């Protein structure tokens, strides 16, 4: 029970709060703040459950894509904000940093492998979210409204 709490609940709460912090920078107000935060917590939960690999990042991005599409339909507003914020915890900031460290220290082998891992993470995130969005849109076409913007 205790490990469950420390391994999953605490990180998800942290991801939620970090994403709410980001909503202040992106000028998101009201309900959007909550949705973006929940999206961030969801992405981190999926990432942890799937084993913290590149594939896990892909799955987390898919979860975000679907979640954001559903939310944008519920609230009738652009999907952009939710995806942007919710993906941020997974963006490989650590990868960039460690790649730089290895590069400066002259450890070419480790530098290259970290760099490739960073690119892999970034690609997994981008492809996952967009793929989920596209498939979701193809399966559930938006209801036709008058003068859709």
């Amino acid at each position, binding site marked *: 029970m205790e490990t469950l709490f420390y391994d999953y609940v605490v990180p998800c709460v942290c991801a939620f709060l*970090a994403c709410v*912090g*980001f909503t*202040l920078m992106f*000028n998101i107000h009201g309900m959007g703040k909550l949705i973006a935060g929940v999206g961030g917590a969801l992405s981190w939960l999926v990432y942890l459950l799937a084993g913290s690999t590149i594939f896990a990042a892909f799955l987390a991005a898919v979860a975000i894509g679907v979640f954001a599409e559903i939310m944008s339909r519920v609230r009738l507003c*652009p999907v952009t904000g939710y995806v942007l914020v919710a993906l941020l915890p997974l963006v490989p900031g650590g990868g*960039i940093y460690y790649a730089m460290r290895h590069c400066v220290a002259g450890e070419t082998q480790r530098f290259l492998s970290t760099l490739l891992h960073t690119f892999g993470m970034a690609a997994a995130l981008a492809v996952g979210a967009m793929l989920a969005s596209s498939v979701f849109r193809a399966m559930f076409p938006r209801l036709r409204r008058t003068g859709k913007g």
Partner: protein
Amino acid sequence: MDYDKLLNMAAELGYQLMYSGAEIYRVEESARRLLYAYGLENPEVFAIPNCVIVSVDTPEGHPITRMRRVPPHGTDIELLERCNGLCRRLCAAPPPIEEAQALIAALPEDEPRYSPRGVLLGYGVAPAFFAPLFGGGLADLVSAFLCGSAVGVCLLYGGRFIGANGFFRTAVSSALASLLAMALVAVGVGESVDVVTISTLMVLVPGVALTNAMREIMAGDTFSGLSRTADAILVASAIALGAAAGQALGGFF
């Protein structure tokens, strides 16, 4: 109908959307739909990340074109949602052009914004709660909060000293973050330099540019997608360069 005003209005809407950080297809689609709603036959709208071009034909067959250059901008989701909502309303029931023009011009003014202090709080809170995600403890959380706030001050108020160049600004912020992280760990506030630095760098990381890039490519705007990808890679290099410089500088003390 006054075609000049119509053209200016569509270009302004495109500009506002672009300025709020909307995707290319949304900018093009919104401006085009707005012009269709006012009864134009085949308006042309073209956008790339820093430019919007709108072109229409008058009934005499005379083509007129307006171009708006979009300066470097951040992401403003509230403005994006407002533009989107307004465009939807205007398309559903087009009011007289002057009225629509006034509505679009008023968009940025009566939009709710967080005070600079609120935004600064965001810059502190986000890195603070990233620290536990990267394996840090309470001490790292506090240090990351301080580092993040310092980066926020640097980005929000430091424009006068470090200029508007995005690459340089990111590099300076990143150097500041790593230097401050080393200092805080040295005086015993933080525990791990790596955790504090990475948490702070998360506010600079090009997550937005990366997501946007993929979005443009998926939507078929390869040109804009590639330029945004280049942007993401440049920001990432600026972060690495800045952090390296900061650590080298910190190594002297």
